[in-house]
Each structure stands twice: as C-alpha cells, then as structure tokens.
C-alpha cells in the first residue's frame, strides 16, 4: 500500500470497501505477519520461543486474511480474557499503546498461570490519525507478541469521525493454556507474605509526566512489559504461589484492596519496604499523588506462604523484570487493632500501611480522576 497516498486515516478506511482492505491487508496484516502471512524477521524468534512441550504450536496456526474467524486447535484447558486500552499520549517513554495492548492481556493470562497463546486485535481509530503512527503501533504489537510467543489470530478495524475517539483505542482478547492450576485470590489467608516484583508507579508517572500540560522532563520510563516469562520462571521453580495479580490501573493500592476484600483478610504493608524509584517519589510529592495508587503495567504482586518467600524473592531478583522485588507486607486474619491482637472484625478487609515513623493508616483504593493539587 502506498503510504504517501493516505497520510492520515480517513473515514473511508473504515467503510468496508477497497480502502479498508488496503489498510488491513497492507499496514496491519503485513505489519503483523509479513507478506505471506509470515513475518520472516520475527519467524526465528517465534521458532525459538516455541516449546514443543506445549499442546499448541502457535506458529502452526495458519493466519489467513479474509476469513471470518480464526480456527484454532484447542489446548487442554484454556484461560480467556479481554482488555481495552486507551492511553494519552499514545507514545510514551518506555512503550506505546501497541506494546501495552499486548502486554496487558498477556499479563492477565499469565497471572492466572496460563501461557498466553493467541490474541485478538480490535482497533478503533479516529479519522485523521497518522498512518505512520499506526504502522509504528502495529510494529510494536508484532514485536511484543513475538517476544512472548503469542500470535494475533483475528482482528477488526473501525474508523470513527474526528472527535469521537482519542486517536486510537485498542481492544485485545487473549487465550492461554492453563499450565498452573489453583492460582486464586480466594487462596490468600492469615500469614501469607505479599511480594511485589519491582518499583511501583512507573507507568502512571511516566504517562502523566508526558501528558499535555504537565510535560515534566523527568527520568521516568513506563514499566510496560509482558510478565509471562518472569511468572513462568517463578511457577516452574516449584513454588506454591497462592495468588498473583498484575498491578495496572489503580496501582498496588487497588490490587491489595481487592485481595483484602475478596479473601476477607487485612493486609499490613510497610511503607519503607515498598519499592518506589526516586524520580517517581519526587513526581508524586510535587503533584500530591500517592505512588501506590499510580498505574503499573509490568509489575506483579505475589501472595506466598512464608516458607517460599526466600526462594520466590531469589528467582524474581534473578529475572531482568524482577530485580527490585521485595516483601512488602503480610496477610492477617481480620482483627480489631493494629498490633494484630484483639477480636475478629466483621467489616470488609482493609489494607493498612505502616508509615515510616511507625504510625498506621489505611491505604485506600484511589478514587475519582487523579488531579494534581494546587499548592
């Protein structure tokens, strides 16, 4: 397709006619798979990633343009998830919406112990979006997918009039093969140790610092990454993990609160154990944010029994994505007082943060729009 011919996405690209097929066949299909439905640059990577032990050989799946649905060989037990992605700016330090849309869905499968295999790719593009930017996004989708060994097998593209979308929205659904059973937030119980795989708040701070109007020149990169490899290393290392969750919107605070509520336990976390980078701390201090409430896109939270803590931390820290992993807290049966004594409490589970001077406070879900403070 001649990129020069249409430098911007036009409504006709979504009309279902010739331009649509040019867009899908040209930029999207070729960007993902190469001319023959096989992207030679990425072929070797796929090959290397393809472990013959798995029930499904992802590269064997023929991707054909113009079919209405992908026909897949079904693995034994599958996990299925979906996620929508909108981010402003679309390109940010450490990634873009394309990488995000692969990593986000891959991570949702990964934390359930499922090896990510197939993705769908739904694009909603605003009229006037630069074709060049679309190509860049498709390229990073393709690269991120290859890195993790997951394939985009079906997709859809729609174009909406100017003003009806913020550049581009992406939805990806993912299918994975469940390799590790019994990961569930309901497993968490009194005494379990909570571990986070790295610095929190990087993605939220990176994106906000580049947002129009703030544009602060800070050394903060998004942590956006696919976590399957790291999680697989932990799970295949013989550790009985109770639950894993990737911290996304709402950050660490939301994960811990969801866990406390679902498992009906309190979680005590220690502020000076939670890894936060210097620049993110500074950014938060300046604008009045709490780093634990800022989004992450490449961090996982683990709940494990105390006897597995050392090994989990060891494995995580030896993985490039888990270098700053640390113990941040403990799950505690619900009691009335901060020291863990007293009677059982029947109100919903809470996250209690021990501050640097030993004073306890509640760490809540973030609420409303994150708005910078004034003074």
């Amino acid at each position: 397709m001649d990129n020069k011919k249409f430098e911007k996405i036009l409504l006709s690209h979504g009309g279902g006619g010739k331009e649509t097929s040019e867009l899908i066949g040209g930029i999207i299909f070729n960007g993902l798979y190469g001319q023959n439905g096989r992207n030679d640059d990425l072929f070797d990577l796929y090959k290397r990633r393809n472990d013959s032990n798995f029930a499904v050989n992802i590269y064997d799946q023929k991707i054909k343009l113009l079919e209405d649905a992908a026909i897949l060989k079904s693995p034994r037990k599958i996990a299925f998830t979906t996620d929508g992605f909108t981010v402003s700016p679309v390109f940010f330090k450490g990634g873009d919406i394309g990488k995000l849309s692969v990593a986000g869905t891959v991570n949702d499968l990964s934390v359930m112990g499922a090896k990510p295999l197939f993705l769908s790719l739904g694009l909603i593009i605003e009229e006037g979006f630069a074709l060049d930017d679309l190509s860049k996004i498709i390229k990073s989708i393709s690269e991120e997918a290859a890195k993790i060994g997951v394939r985009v097998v079906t997709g859809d593209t729609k174009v909406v009039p100017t003003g009806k979308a913020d550049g581009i929205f992406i939805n990806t659904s993912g299918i994975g093969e469940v390799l590790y059973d019994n990961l569930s937030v309901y497993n968490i119980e009194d005494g379990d140790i909570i571990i986070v795989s790295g610095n929190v708040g990087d993605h939220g701070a990176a994106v906000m610092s580049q947002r129009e109007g703030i544009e602060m020149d800070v050394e903060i990169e998004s942590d956006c990454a696919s976590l399957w490899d790291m999680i697989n290393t932990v799970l295949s290392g013989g550790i009985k993990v109770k639950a894993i969750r990737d911290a996304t919107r709402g950050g660490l605070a939301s994960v811990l609160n969801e866990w406390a509520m679902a498992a009906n336990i309190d979680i005590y976390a220690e502020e000076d154990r939670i890894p936060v980078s210097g620049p993110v701390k500074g950014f938060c201090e300046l604008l009045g944010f709490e780093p634990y409430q800022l989004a992450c896109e490449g961090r996982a939270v683990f709940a494990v029994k105390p006897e597995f803590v050392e090994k989990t931390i060891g494995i995580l820290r030896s993985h490039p994505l888990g270098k700053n992993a640390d113990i941040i807290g403990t799950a505690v049966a619900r009691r009335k007082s901060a020291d863990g004594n007293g009677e059982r409490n029947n109100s919903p589970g809470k996250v209690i943060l021990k501050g640097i001077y030993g004073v306890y406070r509640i760490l809540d879900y973030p609420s409303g729009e994150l708005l910078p403070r004034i003074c």
Partner: protein
Amino acid sequence: MELYSDFKRKDDINRLASLIDSEVKKPVNIMEICGGHTHSIMKYGLHKLLKDKINFLHGPGCPVCVMPVRRIDEAIEIADSLDVILTAYGDMMRVPGTNSSLIKERAKGKDVRMVYSPLDIIKIALDKANKDKKIVFFAIGFETTTPMTAALLEEVISRGINNVLFHVNHVLVPPPIKAILDSGDNLIDGFICPGHVSVITGSGIYNDIPDKYGKAAVIAGFEPYDILSGVLLIARQINEGRPAVEIAYKRAVKENGNKKAQVLVDKYFTVRDEFEWRGFGNIPKSGLKLRDEFKDFDAEYVFKDKLKELEIEIGLNEKTVAPTNDKTETCRESFLCKCGEILKGKSKPDDCPLFGKVCNPENPVGACMVSFEGACAAYYKYRNF
C-alpha cells in the same frame, strides 16, 4: 534525592519528637494554616506521634476549600458561553457549585480545560483554532500562586494577546487569621505559618499574631522535619512567654520575601473591599482583583451582565435554603456540613456527621473533602481504622 529523604529521616524525627515532648508541659493547640501542612501531618502521622502534647487544629489555608459556591457558579455561568474556553487548576474542577461542578460541565460538553501552569493558557490562546474564543482563567490561590497569574497577565499584554480573561479569586492569608483571632472563642496557642506563601511575602505579614494577639507564629516547610521544628519553636515560645514570628524554614524563606514577585503582583492587582470565604462569610480586605486599568482582562467586568443574571437566580434560590450556622453565608451548602467550622479550627473533620458516610472523596459534600489539601480529604485518605 537528598532533599527528598534528608528531611524525613527517622532518627531526626524521633529526636525532635522527644524534644517537643520534654518542652511541652501541658497540651498545646497549634493551628497549621496551610492545607499542605495538614496533609503532611496526616500522611506521616505526626498528629499521632505527638498526640499527648500537641493538638493540631486545621486552618483555612486551602484555596480550593475556602472558595465559596458563588464563585464556582460564576465560573460555570461563564463557561456556558459558546465562545468561552474556561481553564482552571485540576483540584478546582471537582468542587461543587450550587447545581454542578466544572468537571460535570466538561462532561456535558462545555469547553472546560485543566491547566497545570498559567503559561499553558498562552498556548491555548495562540492556537489558531481558538482565535475566536475567549480563554477565561479561573485564577485561584494564596500569595504563592498570585505572582504566576500576574506573570501570565504580563505575558498576555506584552505579546498583544487579546483573548485571555481572568476570573480572579486570589486571596490573602492574614485576613482569615485575624478573623479567627478576633472571634474570641478560639483555643489557639500558636500558628504554623505557610512556607510557600512566606517565600513570596516574607515574614512581616504575621507580625500582628504575636504583637496584637500574643500568640506564637512560626513559618515552617512541608517535610516532617520542618513541621516538627516549627512545633518545637512554638513550644519554646510558649514556655518562655515570648510570642514572636520565627522562621523554621530558612532554606527557603527570607524576612523580606521575594521583592520581584511582590512588585509584579502589586502592578496588576489591588485589594478588594471584601471577599466571601466559605465558612467565614465576607472578610474585609481579604481578596484581590485586577486594577481598574486592566479591567478589559477582567472576566467579572466583561461578563458583568451574565453574572448579574446569576445574582438574581441565586437571590431567588436563597429563600428555600436551610439555615446555616453563619448568617453572613450567602451560598448554598448542606446545613449539616461542618466545613465552615473546620476551616476556622473549631471542629475536626471526624466531628462532622457527614464525614466518611455521606461525604467522601467520591461524593464530596463540602469543599474540605474535594481538595487533596482539604482537612477532610486528608483525614479520609490517611484515616486510622
């Protein structure tokens, strides 16, 4: 990084806390004027660290909290014009007016934009797409932020930009303090005075606190170390019976403040006869407005007819309003909301029957819950359990 962590060190904080403990013979009531201080105190649990000796009362120094409903209604009314782009700082967007808030107006399709710095407004004004629009800046803040608004106006004039208007809501720190002290029924022994404001104004603006009212006044920064240093100085003044203005934030505050900023503010602004404060009613000489020679940039002047209509509307509504504690209050608020009492240091957030129940950050009833710096928001966010 040192600046970030050095003023938080655990050893220093414990040492200061024990110095305060031995200095204070009987419990002391200290009002921290600024919302930034309230926030730090709650965040680091300083009120609990000193709970047997120091009772922190939270003051009126959150510009969002003290903004009366009326001024928000005005902003909403102005934003209603098709040719207006209304710009405001983030925190201000959620504050409820009589029937709506700026963020809700934005959701309805009004062109309301959040800005982070007044200079963003230049960008919006110069954007060709906006050449037929009036960019109205809802300017708020204490002495700290006024120079930035003045700098914006200076820039607008020097570049010959003719589509930027100002809805000026800048207020001053000393008048509400005077109002609190004049009311007589306060328990305050000393004040922690705002650090950022003092960087601009210098320390002289607080002289009346010791001289006329015999209370301690110490300017402090916002880190735990700064706040505890301020508390210690107040405790010493009380023990030695020598109320004075002292600076516990010498790395930032000079006695005379920032002359350049003061000149800039004075060039464009003058003091209003009175300005309405949420919880206080009208306070004489407490707010700023643009000087007459700049009235063409003054949204209150340019939209005077539109705002007059609003006055009539509010006047009609007022008759149906439940009584508030304060007779001078002209705005509509829930009569159960204790924001007014809290801003005067007479109540604490958890004394309010609405706190944490009907009123929470998702659904704020009063302004003290809306702003991050508001005392209620700080209590809610860092609440114990």
